[in-house]
């Protein structure tokens, strides 16, 4: 083993930087292709919303200076990248003098917790279902029932979220409408707080798990079909190994590898989808912060949240990439 070489490490790190750079560059370029001065447009929109904007001239001046809008584009771009690289995200426009960094730091744990748990559950459940669907020894009853769990596969998580809120929060009143924990509770490692967090997180997590697990199940089914035809499976059966051992350690073990690659590739869209889920459930994570930014036309906040989302997802992908040689010993990045 020992597949991790310096070369591979540098390559993956380069990929990480490239991803973040591409994402942030798109954000820089495309709004500038649209006609009009973004700052003046923003301030006029602000005054249209609230009637009158205090110190609008100062805001325009401050923004012009912040983005250096009078400077040529390459200097603007250089400053922009420099600010991002040093995590200098500036102040929130709507909640001045709150700093974007602090706001993101406060909401990040919620998104991180919800997203990683939901993704993990969906990955494990979906792959198990998919593997069982392609497994000859699966009882017929299970084979008939398992596809039911894939009903919601094609539906976006946030739509299922609306249905869940209506059914379980509005109709049955089993779960709360909004928030991440009950009002009046002090966040801390107390049992009551943890219970409240789980209670509040159930519906959003359910929305994500139920709508994404089918993706894993379908991929896994395809991989399992291929794996079942392999010679080592026949040999394992001929040796008389326990079916459960063949299933998990011979079948799933080999079929799961492309699924992990797929996980790295889809992490971005899962994170994007959860933004809207948080908005539906008023869950105080980064997605909801983003929504607040949109409502308040708080551009620094929007940009900051998305920057952290991109960095976070790319970092997760980097970690998966670096772990991959450990999961699949056949892959060695050493030059032979």
């Amino acid at each position, binding site marked *: 083993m020992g597949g991790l070489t310096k070369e591979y490490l540098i390559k993956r790190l380069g990929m990480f930087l490239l*991803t973040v750079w591409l994402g942030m560059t798109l954000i820089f370029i495309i709004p500038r292709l649209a006609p009009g001065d973004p700052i003046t447009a923003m301030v006029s929109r602000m005054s249209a919303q609230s009637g009158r904007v205090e110190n609008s001239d100062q805001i325009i001046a401050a923004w012009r200076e912040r983005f250096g809008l009078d400077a040529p584009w390459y200097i603007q771009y250089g400053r922009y990248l420099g600010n991002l690289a040093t995590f200098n995200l500036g102040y929130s426009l709507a909640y001045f003098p709150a700093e974007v960094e602090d706001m993101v730091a406060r909401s990040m744990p919620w998104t991180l917790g919800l997203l990683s748990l939901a993704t993990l559950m969906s990955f494990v459940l979906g792959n198990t279902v998919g593997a069982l669907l392609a497994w000859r020894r699966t009882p017929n009853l299970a084979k008939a029932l398992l596809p039911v769990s894939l009903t919601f596969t094609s*539906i*976006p998580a946030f739509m299922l979220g609306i249905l869940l809120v209506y059914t379980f929060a509005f109709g049955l009143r089993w779960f709360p409408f909004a928030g991440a924990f009950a009002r009046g509770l002090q966040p801390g490692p107390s049992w009551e707080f943890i219970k409240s967090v789980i209670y509040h997180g159930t519906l959003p997590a359910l929305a994500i798990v139920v709508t994404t697990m089918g993706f894993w199940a379908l991929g896994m089914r395809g991989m399992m079909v291929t794996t079942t035809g392999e010679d080592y499976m026949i040999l394992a059966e001929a040796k008389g190994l326990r079916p459960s051992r063949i299933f998990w350690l011979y079948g799933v073990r080999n079929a799961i590898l492309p699924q992990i690659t797929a996980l790295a590739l889809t992490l971005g869209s899962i994170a*994007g*989808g959860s933004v809207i889920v948080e908005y539906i459930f008023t869950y105080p994570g980064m997605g909801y912060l983003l929504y607040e930014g*949109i409502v308040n036309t708080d551009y620094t906040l929007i940009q900051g949240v*998305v920057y952290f989302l*991109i960095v976070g997802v790319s970092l997760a992908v980097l970690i998966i990439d670096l772990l991959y040689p450990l999961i699949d010993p056949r892959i060695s990045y050493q030059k032979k």
Partner: protein
Amino acid sequence: MSIVSIEQVPAPKEIARSRLNRWDSPWLNPKLIAGFVLVMSVVLLGVIGPFFWDVTQARVASAPLNLPPIWVKDPPAIFPDPDPAHPLGTESNGRDMLALLMAAAPGTLRVGLIAAGLGMTIGILLGFSAGFLGGWWDALVRTIADAVITIPSLAVLIVISAFVRQIDLTNMALLLALFAWPGPTRLIRAQVLSLRERGYVQMARISGASTLDIMFKEMMPNLLPYLAASFSGNVSANILAATALEALGLGPTRIPTLGMTIFYSIRAASILRGMWWWWGFPILLLILIFTGLFLITVGLDEIANPRLRGVQAG
């Protein structure tokens, strides 16, 4: 003797016909057909609906407010009694729900189709050229596609459309296409890499067929089911992204879309007010679209990969 044995072999035409009689064509995949029917039902609602229903009622203040659908008996006291003139009810801005759905569905489908079409076109060009030419071009395409695919595209789209604000359907589709190409590119590149080693491709190469001929006459037909599956998956992903942007209030504001209907409905707290018809009908249509496209994708996958078909039977 030899004459007799020749007569026993059925003519090729008959074989073909008997196959057809047995409905043996892989394209008659039940999932594919069911998915097609679902999507077409939404398309027809938008295309034929306006001939039977006054779509101008999709404008604000063209109907009474908050009417429930006609089959709701004894609505809560806060709502007026249902009115047969508005079978699916109305929402709080005075739009007729049926007219709104008819006006909104085509736009939603169109965004998905344009974005996916652009994404596929770029994907075919890049994927074929990368897989076929190899070398530095392949490395470049692969690296950028891998990077773009991991960007949380929805988040980037949210920033861009929040900054731009004034956006129409076509521009939105163009924006979505920014992130719609890496998937098809990767898929096509991988397929081309495996196809180019196949016998018939090598044969064509030895026969002196030009690169373009090999690409489009030899490989393309074999890739069609993959391409079609990828396309319908792509349409679905783009409609999802478009709907998500609209649901955040970042979509086109001039024409109604299904996502925008959801946005207004959430903003007016329709869930807590029990106005399920406001968000329920657009979501129902979207579910029809997504389920239909999903079934089409799975059906096409089964056509492209016959091994998946066997699983169902076994």
